[in-house]
């Protein structure tokens, strides 16, 4: 992600055997948080929402993201279905919980940009099984108590198993989770599976990331499936046409662009 942080990790990784101690749960989550995911990214995204009867609803969008230090901005244009084509969402995402994210939505049928009030972190996002908290790269680390519970093989990968419990009841209520469990690959610090438990302590959802490969030197999951085991509803996200570090300009993340709509030729 950032050169400085990379430096710190390398140091840590080198240092680890010296102290011959296992990293703590928090150490590992920091590795996940600071993993290199490029400075900017253009990608195509397909959402498949599958309900318990197997009925499928699909959406396609193209999404641009740029990092600003620990903050980031993104703009997402809807391509399909046709009745929401050219609808676009601009998000200015601020690190930490102190400042609410800013979100604007352009509705082509109304020809107006509307600001959207910020959601609770535990609210579900766009009809998917992901909450606003889930779609972030990593949860807010300081809100959880992280515990490394062990190492194991998941598929053909060696993983750390880290459990995170929201620090207090208010947070649990807000996030909708009593506990989360991350399975994190030791080689590239990507989580490949996450289990979630609801506030009643019952298993709620699990997220599985698949088809992990390196694109432009960045480790990328091409597919993520979140399954709600209680409702039987599931969301499949597939990503394609990644372009990392193409040097997106600040202009791309403005209200003007939101209204103009996505034009491929407009990009480099």
């Amino acid at each position: 992600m950032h050169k400085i942080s990379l430096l710190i990790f390398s140091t840590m990784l080198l240092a680890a055997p010296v102290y011959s101690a296992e990293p703590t749960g928090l150490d590992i989550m920091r590795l996940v948080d600071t993993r290199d995911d490029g400075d900017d990214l253009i990608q195509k995204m397909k959402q498949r929402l599958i309900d318990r009867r197997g009925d499928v609803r699909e959406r396609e969008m193209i999404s641009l993201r740029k990092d600003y230090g620990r903050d980031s901005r993104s703009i997402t244009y809807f391509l399909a279905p046709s009745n929401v084509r050219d609808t676009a969402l601009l998000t200015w995402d601020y690190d930490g919980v102190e400042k609410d994210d800013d979100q604007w939505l352009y509705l082509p049928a109304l020809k107006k940009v509307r600001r959207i009030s910020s959601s609770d972190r535990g609210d579900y996002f766009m009809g998917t099984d992901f909450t606003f908290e889930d779609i972030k790269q990593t949860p807010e680390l300081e809100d959880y108590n992280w515990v490394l519970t062990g190492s194991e093989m998941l598929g053909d990968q060696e993983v750390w198993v880290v459990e995170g419990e929201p620090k207090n009841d208010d947070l649990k209520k807000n996030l909708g989770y009593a506990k989360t469990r991350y399975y994190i690959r030791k080689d590239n610090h990507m989580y490949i599976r996450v289990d979630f438990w609801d506030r009643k302590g019952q298993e709620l959802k699990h997220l599985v990331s698949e088809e992990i490969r390196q694109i432009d030197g960045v480790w990328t999951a091409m597919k993520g499936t979140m399954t709600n085991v209680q409702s039987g509803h599931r969301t499949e996200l597939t990503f394609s046409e990644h372009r990392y570090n193409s040097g997106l300009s600040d202009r791309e993340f403005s209200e003007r662009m939101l209204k103009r709509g996505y034009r491929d030729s407009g990009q480099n």
Partner: protein
Amino acid sequence: MKQIFNRVLTHPKSVLLLLLLLTGVAGNQMRNIYIETDMDAMLPRHSDAYINKQVLEERFGSTDMLIIGVINDEKDGIYNTHSLTLVQELTDWLAEQPHFRTLALNDLLSLATIKDIRGSENGLDVEKFMDGVPENRAEIDYLKKRMHEFGVYEDVIVSADGSGTIFAVRPMPDTRHKYAEIYDMVKAKVEAMEARGGSERFFISGRPVIEGVFGVYMPQEMKRMQPIIMALLLLLLYLSFRTPRGVFLPIVVVLMAEIWMLGTMAALGAPIYTVTTMLPILILAIGIADAVHFLSRERLLAHYQAYAHRKERLIEVMHELWKPMLMTSVTTGAGFLSMLASDLPPIRDFGLFAAVGIAYALLITMLLLPAALMLLPEKEKHADRKPLFSGYVEWLGRAVLAYPKRIMAFFAVLLIISVAGVLKLDVNASLVDQFKPGDPIRKADEMLNQHFSGTTSLDVMIDTGRENGLLEPEFLQHLVDLQLEIEKDPMVGDSSSIAEFLQTMNQALHADDPAWKRVPDSSDLAAQYLLLYSFSGAPDDFETFMTGDYRQAHVRINMKTDETRVVAALLERMKGKTDAWFPEDKGFKVEWAGTGFTVHRLSEMIIEGQVASLAVSILAIFLLCWWMFGRLLIAAIAMIPVSLAVTVNYGMMGNIGIPLDIATALTGAMALGIGVDFAIHYLHRYHEESVAGRSYEESVINTNRSVGHAILFNSFVVVGGFLVLLSAALYPQMKLGALIAATMVVCYLATCYLFPVLLGLGRKKIRV
């Protein structure tokens, strides 16, 4: 036949052992009995109300909710910090209970979960009405103002006058068998909250609660009534026989028959419904007759010492009695089996298993009594005491001959009054009305219906026939029209649909200008609103109003009553309108569901089944009588007392205002089946007297003297047995008990008073 009887009497121990063994097997089966309180399970599986209910659940996740109302009669109603703190506390508590499903907004609706949609200067705000308990007057006033302006939840979640608010929570899908437990748990919680003081009062209702309480009441009732009716039987048997064997042998017979019947039900997987809880009582009351006849006859023959050996005597008793017993059992059975003409499983099961139980009672009587009497030591007979009521029976024989005109006049008046009553007969299959007035459940339900939009659900599902169909402005406008039309009914508290929310969003995105409270102008705009909403509110907020492909819409209606006539009138009125708004030839399909609709279909089927089973039973019993007596005229005469009794039965219901429901609908065929026995016994005896060459007068007196007693005893048992039901906690059983008891009285009177008069009308011609 005699050979079979002989074999029974030669191996009495084996016979008893076999009976005990079978009873053991049946008793063992009884563990598998389960209770069915789901009203939809009372519908046949092919009924549209049953199917649509499944579709509603499957497509819109809409299931019956537990409802808690809190009412505060003080000036500000629930708009005060104390009440709102309780609202928050109870909401949080409900969300934490594992028995409730609380995934989506529509799983747990309360003032603390519902969301306000509001236009802001440059966007749309979707926020909870209550984000924590409001702390000061200003915040509370704002909450009150928004609730009123938003409108969607007014009267639904908060009563229009602010005096109360509601919690609706969805039980987990697999918790049906725990409904009673859930009710107790919720009750304990609200009682604890009430006990802390404050002017808030809590009321719990909703179908899960009603069905849960039913599930508790039913076995309790069965257990409670069994000893009462047994005591009654013991008393009557003692009065008749005054010997231990005379009292206990018939009791053992009917208990065995009861166990066999319940065992059969369990083995065949038939559940216990509200109406079938009455089966044991029924079998005790009806099954006892055969045993009483047997023992009376045996005692009589023993008294006259007509046979040297008791084996011969018993063979004679069996030989004499098997035919009339079989006949009366067959006619009674035919009355019950006619209930198979109904489409409703509870009524079908009731008829089928009553007939099975009657057959068992006959079989056990013919096996157990002779075998037991063979084994019991012969005792010196008591001096034959005059049976009770001998004076009355003697008087009766002469009285009917003395006052034929008065008797005719009495029955003619009764008939006229009854026919007038039949014309007033009403149908109602209300679930709540099955509880007595004053029952806490019924009171809670009344309270909730009074303050809020209503506890009875009625649902319309509209399939637009194509993806995104429900986003079309024209369709959305018709949804609005539909709601307006439905809400004209004073018994409809509220309705909601996706159109309502889209109107509100349209207004919110046009600076909250009320002029824009209308459906979006284009399908695309509607789609974009919904997408917009999904960023602010949870997307499953609307899953109960539409499917993900925007093809099917659901309008939810809350009604203040589940009375059939109201629902029927509403459906009738809506039919033409929905046909015009959602024409079938354009691919639309309108389907109704919900408790209101279930109740409506139930009552329709009650009437259809009622007419069919009455017709079948009258015909079957008539044909049986014709076959037994060999003469058409006699068969016709045999039908008169029961037909009269059945008419009086329905007339009484019409005159008193007892509607036909799933329990009272049984009375007709039941009365017919039981009552015709009286006529058969009477005619049989009269026939023998006539054949013996006695005059009309002598025949009447002699008939009364011999079968008058038996019929009187039968009437006492049946009337007494059904009067026990008056102590029931559930209304249908009370009503059924009273009706059958009264009908049996009429049947007795018609048999013993009217019959002889009728037979005397053409005394020259009518020779039975």
